[in-house]
């Protein structure tokens, strides 16, 4: 099963994402902002990174850009958790190297369906 890094500054979102992914048998690591996520990512490869956009210290876009600089993250799927209204954020995210996005709000089923698109 996949090893997934879940990045969000909201504890409830993080818990929900982690709970859902673990329930589906994945291994999940958590980070509460981009800096922390990057730190984790540097020490170990991931099969997928799920990141919120708006976060303190380092936002999701910046995280994405930084991850793509890492050799082991060149092709790793990175999905941004974003809100519908933030159309330009999607573009920005894509420009920074994000694979795609999951539109908030989403429920656990939507999350699992979406990540299936990029895993395996």
């Amino acid at each position, binding site marked *: 099963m996949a090893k997934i890094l879940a990045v969000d500054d909201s504890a409830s*979102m993080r818990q929900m994402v982690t709970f859902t992914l673990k329930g589906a048998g994945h291994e999940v690591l958590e980070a509460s902002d981009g800096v922390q996520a990057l730190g984790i990512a540097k020490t170990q490869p991931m099969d997928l990174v799920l990141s919120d956009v*708006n976060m303190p210290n380092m936002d999701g876009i910046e995280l994405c850009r930084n991850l793509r600089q890492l050799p082991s993250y060149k*092709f790793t799927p990175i999905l941004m958790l974003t*809100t519908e209204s933030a159309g330009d954020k999607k573009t920005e995210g894509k420009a920074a190297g994000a694979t795609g996005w999951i539109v908030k*709000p989403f*429920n656990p089923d939507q999350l699992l369906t979406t990540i299936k698109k990029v895993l*395996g």
Partner: protein
Amino acid sequence: MSVDLSQFHQVFFEESYEGLDAMENGLLNMDMDDIDSEVINTIFRSAHSIKGGAGTFGFNQITGFTHVVETVLDEIRGGDRKMDQSLLDILLASVDCLRGLLQDLQSGDEPEMDTANELKAKFEAILSGQTEGSAPSSNGASDSGNSQSGNEDQNGSTPDGGGEGWFIRFIPEPQLLQSGNEPVRMFRQLEEVSEGKMDVKVFHDKMPTLSAMNPEHCYLSWEITIKKNVDRAQIDEVFEWVIDDAEVHIEPLVGTTLTEEPAPASPAEVEKPSDLVTSAAKEKVPEKADTKAAKKPPSSPQTQESSSIRVSIDKVDSLINMVGELVITQSMLGQLGQNFDISRIQRLQEGLAQLEHNTRELQESVMKIRMMPISFVFSRFPRLVRDTSRILNKKIELVMSGESTELDKTVMEKIGDPLVHLIRNSMDHGIETPDKRVANGKSETGTVKLTAYHQSGNIVIEIKDDGAGLNKEKILSKAIENGLITEDQTLTDEQVHDLIFQPGFSTADQVSDLSGRGVGMDVVRRNISALNGTVEVESFPGKGSSFIIRLPLTLAILDGQLVSVGDQTFIFPLVSIVESIQLEGRDLNNVGGYSDVLLLRDEYVPIIPLSGTFNLNVESKTLEESIIVVVETEGEKIGVVVDELMGQQQVVIKSLEENYKRIEGISGATILGDGTVALIIDISGLAKMAGVSIKHLDASTIAA
């Protein structure tokens, strides 16, 4: 898979409240002319997270409202909108409104949406009024529409139905792979959508020679024919993420014979997608689209809100340390037990004592977790003062100190409302209008000081204003009018001041915004009494008044000085101890034949023997051999005679009243390291018991 989302609600509520606090703080401290980007980002992020969480957890009332708030904040953040006072007010009102909505939801009630709708309308007016450009994007999104298709609308004319199927041309940019997108996965998804009724044709005409090839680039392109009538949206979704990194043409399949059901009799050029790029895509998971929207149980409208507590890492770390010590002790005892003989009894006893000590410490630390800094309550007051002073047209500055003073969470939760009332009262009745202040030679801006500190095992909270002080005449006439006193009664100042706490007393000349709440000072006093606390008022005409709240720390931690009298141990609150001295030939004066007084430097300090006051039936030392603990209470010093000073330690205050009753001169009990109970001394109570009327004891009486 269905996940019960309600398990995350509590966390969501808590972080949302925190987010709202952060928003409020940010808004209050904002310099409107020069907005700090970090500040506005924090505010925006808080709103954003609340909206996201609310959407996820199905609180659509919150989502809809927060959405407009967020949109406005986003414009401010982007510099597209200027912040001004009225906008600030609406934003602050929104914070309050959201807090209310969250509280309703948390307690399982249907949220009261009137205010939210009003505010929302205001925001919408603001949004449509000025910056037209940004508005449209926000419209559809407010409710959980959640239309996922990335309507890129290239073939805008095509409606949903593909008729007989779809023809797709997919020509990726070479860098497609570097965004983490992988054509194989996309084809697999299409295969699922079309239930296998799909042909894929690959084109490798752009493939360079091996030497010119960049292995990280994609040189292939594809034509896909889907022979099934699926929704266009489902196809769009597959290509949603690559629309910018590829040419994607999607056309409805027309005319061709869709009737030939048994699909691909495989023409040579048609290959199964999975064979194409890699074989990793074998498992095709013919899952029935399991998008049955995770039905959560009717979000558990449990009335009993499970409350939780946030604990600082320090406290948790210290707990972990103690558990570590406990484990060490345990393993030491374990080893001792393996080959035990009677010669090692001493070590066993030590070990057991250590174990007991560890356990006790652990217990105390766990108790400490309930203690939180009073800033949790104080933090809402800057806002209160700001808003209220605007309503009152007064200039008022709030000065707070002692925010880190800790008290029990339960006490904290209950002291908020009385404090709000007292602060409002100081602003409403205490502080004068700016012109009146200037006329009286005061600065235009009034000050309300909010102070918290520990004293004699109490938490003391003072609300002090530099206003006009209590208006004695007005209080008296009001009290007479309300039948609280008769006209011929003569009262001391203190008695007059006390009248304001009587039920049915209100001095508000007119029912203002503030006093219209139907809560009087009597309720404040009652609420404080319910916490076993007291509230007093002091007033100085023309200079201001102070309300002093004393609350016991039922569960609080106290730094204690252990003392012994005979074989008994008592605890003095360390904060109230000024010094401890031995009499050693110092002179004691006898005042009026009933009380001993010690001349300590320039002051006469009345002496109270603890054993006498408490009628302890113990052999205690003579006065000469004793120790005098000089303590301060209510601004006065007294000397308490004890036999010996023992150690100092932090103790957890436990209630005597819970199972027994209040004892004069005792504020509570605690459990010592050896498991026995020691009583904690209430200094001011002790002074009262001893009948030391400190205030009347000045040098002149003694000289007599």
